């Protein structure tokens, strides 16, 4: 279970965009969080993935309270999460080939030896052809790069996936392909999902349940 308990967070302590928000994602559950841009849902997603320290409140991962944020998070907690953001170009190191990009978390955790096999499997899961894997980000389209970013998010076999507007820039077919890849992974691994976005039709089709930002903040 992923529990977000009374979180207050933001970039300005006097005016946090997230105020006293609680949300629980059950084991293997997929929850869509809907809200307009700028409402604070992306900040909440970053807190949930241990990428942003909240001002107040608690994140509890499978019964264990989060014990740090960003690089200070214990490795076992940090690697429980796979995260995909809206803009693949902002989250992909332009110097790496797609193969290196996907394998990066493995190398960072000293498991580089597994890389060739994992990258091959994941490339298939997300629909990336062999020829693309040797390219760098500027040599592929947004959709192709986002496929690589999803593969990177899955490479450590996370128990929790956080997708923040993962498909907002993409066409209908690439959107459906990426969501299918996420769902195949979840069916296989039992991972839970928090998908944050503004597209009601998409999130309602994708997730077990959706909550609106207003419902979380009204309480």
């Amino acid at each position, binding site marked *: 279970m992923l529990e977000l308990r009374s979180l207050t967070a933001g970039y300005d302590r006097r005016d946090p965009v997230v105020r006293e928000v609680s949300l629980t994602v059950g084991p293997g559950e997929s929850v869509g969080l809907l809200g*307009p*841009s*700028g409402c604070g849902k992306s900040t909440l997603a970053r807190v949930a993935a241990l990428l942003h320290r909240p001002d107040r409140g608690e994140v509890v991962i499978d019964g264990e309270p989060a014990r740090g944020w960003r690089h200070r998070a214990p490795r076992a907690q940090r690697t429980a999460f796979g995260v995909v953001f*809206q803009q693949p170009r902002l989250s992909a190191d332009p110097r790496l080939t797609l193969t290196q990009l996907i394998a990066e978390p493995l190398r960072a955790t000293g498991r580089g030896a597994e890389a060739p096999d994992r990258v091959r499997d994941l490339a298939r899961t997300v*629909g990336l*052809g062999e020829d693309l894997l040797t390219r760098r980000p500027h040599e592929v*389209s*947004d*959709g*192709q790069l986002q496929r690589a970013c999803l593969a990177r998010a899955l490479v450590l076999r996370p128990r929790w996936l956080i997708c923040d507007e993962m498909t*907002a*820039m*993409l*066409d*209908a*077919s*690439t*959107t*459906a*392909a990426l*969501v*299918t890849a996420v769902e195949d992974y979840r069916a296989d691994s039992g991972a839970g999902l928090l998908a944050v976005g*503004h*597209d*009601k*039709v*998409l999130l*309602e*089709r*994708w997730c077990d349940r959706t909550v609106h930002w207003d419902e979380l903040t009204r309480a």
Partner: protein
Amino acid sequence: MSGSPTGAEAEPAVTEAEPVTAVDADADADAAAVAAPPPVLSVRGLSVRFRMRGGAHVAAVTDARFDLAAGECLALVGESGCGKSVLASALLGLLPENAQTAGAALLGDGTDLLTADERTLARTVRGRRVGLVPQSPAAHLTPVRTVRSQLEETLRELTGVRRPALREAGEAAAERAAFPAGHLDRYPHELSGGLAQRAATALALIGDAPLLLADEPTTGLDRELVDRTVDELRRHVGDDRALLMITHDLAAAERIADRVAVMYASRIVEIADAADFFGDPGPRHPYARGLLDALPDREFRPVPGMPPELSALPEGCAFAARCERADEACAVVPVLPAEPSSGAACHHPVAAALEASRA
């Protein structure tokens, strides 16, 4: 009409038969044809190739052909990298140095956007005859100047309005795009995405250009804002302008387009009436059908595989590797029928099969 077996043969025959001596039964039709104003934009055989290092070529746009009439909104849809943004750049004369173009893109007055020199484009076309609603308004607006000062400068340039009338004209220009007067003295970074989009739209509308070109005007906007933005664009088109909206957002296209053109691997593979396309009978090209079926309120099923690289397009139909209807016939590139104004570049179009099976 002769019973010529192929379009290629029929075309010259029609041209020759056309001289205005036609009387009798066709007279009414001819009169109507004469009365109809020329299209706001007429694109014929438009191709764009990029020369790459090492002598390679990228075919970004191949043989595009369509007309755009006053009062009409055409949505050009397709996935990223299909060539639709390059087509837009070609129409604005904003292609990079290594681009080679062929064909024509004629405005109503006969100006060819492909051959006009930069001076003509800058002085008489951009802003005046073709208004651009940009993809990322924040990037299009000058960051160090307020919205008011940018509107006033564009007004000075395009309409010749001078002080003291300028201030009022600037406010009127803002109002046309529903940009609130209270925010005119703000800088672009102080605006929300929606307001930045309106500021950019207000700028695009100033020259009263008969053709509006919107390049992914809704990327990254919330659905409500998407709806509002495209509704506003549609409203500005009215009866006497035309809108070419380039988008990957099919819902936005469905909302305002009269016609839809689908681009795949550098070619327009289908042009259709929007109601037919999104409703019944639906798209005729298998790719267009697949794209619609991928929508979350439809099948939510991706088109299998990925599009080919524009630098390595296959022989024959570029969709064949992903198409369940492909057969030997598809080894020959299918062409978009020149007439009527809708059709699919496909040897086995879907709706035709449906009609055939019904018959």
